């Protein structure tokens, strides 16, 4: 698997390293997105989030999305990482780094990837409440577009 392939990891995400990995002398624009655990969502306190994935399927889906983003937006570089396990408030659960000649493509690709990851990639979050409560998050929408 190439070094640029998406990764699921249990340690902390290093955004600075991802930016360095997408750097290019042909790039005028570099975007790093970090999705972080909020301490409060819709008025409910969160102690931490816990993530799990269908790992081989998630890695394959992320690789497919990365390749599509590289082509669709003419990117020069693209790195995707997603945490698994417990992610404390303030820590990053997902990171996307993109580079392109111009900023529109770098921004659009990072946003597009986040939309697709949240809609299609088999990764799930569990809310860990301050009282020890656990709740898996399953939006109403169907994954994969099948009714």
């Amino acid at each position, binding site marked *: 698997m190439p070094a640029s392939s998406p990764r699921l990891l249990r340690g902390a995400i290093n955004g600075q390293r991802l930016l360095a990995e997408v750097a290019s002398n042909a790039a005028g624009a570099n975007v790093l997105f970090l999705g972080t655990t909020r301490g409060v969502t819709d008025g409910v306190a969160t102690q931490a989030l816990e993530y799990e994935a269908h790992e*081989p399927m998630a890695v394959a889906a992320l690789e497919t999305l990365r390749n599509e983003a590289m082509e669709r937006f003419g990117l020069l570089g693209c790195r995707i990482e997603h945490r698994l396990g417990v992610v404390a408030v303030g820590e990053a659960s997902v990171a996307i780094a993109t580079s392109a000649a111009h900023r529109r493509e770098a921004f659009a690709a990072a946003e597009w990837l986040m939309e697709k990851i949240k809609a299609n990639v088999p990764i799930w979050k569990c809310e860990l409440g301050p009282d020890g409560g656990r709740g898996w998050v*399953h939006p109403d929408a169907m994954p994969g577009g099948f009714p």
Partner: protein
Amino acid sequence: MTIHPPAATPPPLSPTHQLRVKLFAGLAAAASTRLLELPWGGGTAAELKAAVAAAVPAAAALVSSSGVAVGNQYIAPDATIPPEADVALIPPVSGG
């Protein structure tokens, strides 16, 4: 006299053949397992979902809104699931 069936035709599956279905997140919590074993005589993805819902009634609603994956790919509701398939039920995702 010995009858040799055509080599290309596999023997019919016993209805007690066990299919192993990977479960995740709320489905695994509801079923109290990450790997559900089901008697499986063959059928479609939609039929598999019905069989899982019957085996784990507490997860029926979440099963009905789940997709089915074989290997690393989602499959359509009318696609057939081979007996030795690497099958997973994919409840609505929430990564990011």
